[in-house]
Structures are given as C-alpha cells and as structure tokens.
C-alpha cells in the first residue's frame, strides 16, 4: 500500500492537529486555532516573538517498504515584508512551545537547493504509521520596522522518499 502522509502541528509528544490542508498561524498564544485572536504586535523597539510552532510528519498509512529523506523547504522569498521573519530550529523530541527567542535559522534561506533535513535525530528508514522524523520548530519574529496589517500566507513544501 502506498503511504498516505500528512503534516501535523504538534500539541504534545504524539498528538497533533492535521495541517496538511490547513494554515499554521503564528500567534501570541499557544494554540492551533486559525483566527484573528492573539495577534502579533509591532513593537515600538526591539523584536516580538510568536509562540513557536512544531511541525512533524505523520503517516496515516505506512509505506510498502520504508520512507526516508524527510525534508522541508521554502520558496526562498520572504513576502511578509520588512521587519518580519520566520526562523526555525530542529528538535529530536517534543518540547513545549515558547514565546522567547529561539535564535533560529532564517527559513527562507532553505530552498529546493538547500533543504532542511528532518530526520537528523529520528533517523530513517521509517516504517509503519504514526509520527516520524524530527520536529520542525518555527517562530515568527516581528521587528519595530514592520508594517501593521494582515499578512498573506507563505507556504513550506515537505518532501519524502518512498520505497
């Protein structure tokens, strides 16, 4: 049986919300709801940090043999505008979301030519069903030079090799 793969926003060690078809919204609250509550503010000075978002692969049905090379990447263009960024770090185990600076790497530097490796710690080959690979921890940063207003969505691409 060919694998069925989803992307989940994690709320616990092995629990998450399917966001394969949904939006991951950065907020000032630790929740997965996509609405206009708990919006990020443009600071008068310095930088505001969103609560982090943890994303992870979830296999609804497993591969016939195995899955390897879990990857993620952006299109390389930050269209959020001046003063707004998204950074990432990788976690091998679940950790509660935080709203302090994670000092991550700019996710927009990771493109189809320089992808994020999502099975560094939780290495493949992956078999069976359930959560697989590493946690991609994302955080939005908002600096004082940012313009207020609603942002258009950016999209990450996730990739995997199925044998």
């Amino acid at each position, binding site marked *: *049986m*060919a*694998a*069925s*793969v989803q*992307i989940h926003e994690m709320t616990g060690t092995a629990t998450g919300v399917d*966001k*394969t*078809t*949904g*939006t*991951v919204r950065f907020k000032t609250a630790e929740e997965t709801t996509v609405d206009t509550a708990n919006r990020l503010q443009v600071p008068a000075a310095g930088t505001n940090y969103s609560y982090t978002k943890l*994303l992870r692969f979830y296999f609804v049905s497993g591969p*016939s*043999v195995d899955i*390897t*090379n879990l*990857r993620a*990447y952006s*299109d390389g263009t930050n269209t959020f505008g001046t003063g707004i960024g998204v950074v990432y770090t990788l976690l091998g185990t679940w950790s509660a979301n935080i709203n302090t600076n994670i000092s991550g790497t700019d996710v927009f530097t990771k*493109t*189809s*030519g320089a*992808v994020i490796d999502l099975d560094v710690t939780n290495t493949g080959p992956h078999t069976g069903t359930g959560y697989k690979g590493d946690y991609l921890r994302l955080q939005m940063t908002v600096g004082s030079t940012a313009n207020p207003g609603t942002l258009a*969505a950016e*999209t*990450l*691409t*996730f*990739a*995997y*090799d*199925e*044998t």
Partner: protein
Amino acid sequence: MDINDLKKMTNLQLAPNVMYAWQMETIDGEVLTQYDSEGKELSWKTLDVDKIIRCSFLPRVLGLPRHDIMLDFSAGEKFIKRFGRGFVKQDNSKTEYVNCCMTNRYRVWVFSSDGRVIITKNDFELYINL
C-alpha cells in the same frame, strides 16, 4: 483537452503516488510489477538488483505515458534502486509525486501529474517548487 480533463472525465482521482506502477525485468526474463493480480503491492527488493535490465513506469490512469528505462549491462550500466519522492505543499494546494529510477550513471524522474521526465546525474537530488 489536457490530462486533467481526461482524469475528470474518467473520474480517476487516484492519489499522486499510485498514478504509476513500476515494473522490473531481470536478464533472466523474470518480470515483477508493483501490484499483483489481486492488487497487493509487491517489493522490487525481492529481485537481484544486479540482474535488473529494465525498469518501467506504467500509467494507471488515462493520458499518462509509459516510460521504459533499459540498462546496458555491456556498457557498465547498473540498476541501483527505485523510489518515489512525494511533495506536499503545506496548505495542500499542490502535491506532486515523482518516481525515480536510479542507476550508477543517471537518474530518471517521472512526474505523476503529467508524465514528464527529467534526467539527471545519478547523485542529483530533485526538489521542486510546487
């Protein structure tokens, strides 16, 4: 009419990773196809990879072309592996699935959405912007 129109007409909305089935043939004449007569999925790893002389990708829907990769043993070509690479855009607005035949000389990547092919060096990792 394009391939998407054909898919709609025939109502074959298969998942991207089952649009093609692989088929391998060994130099001994043994032929193995991804799905057996009962639809059960098989593994090409049961074959002796050193004997695989043909790797094919067979369309399972109308409108997609068949692709056959013949390995020239006399020229030193060797089959390494077959795998599929899935791509999921996080908002699921687009997905893609690419079947890859990897040899010691090159890789042949077959796109499930429209059957087009990209041939690369054998160590090239194809990641696409959907």
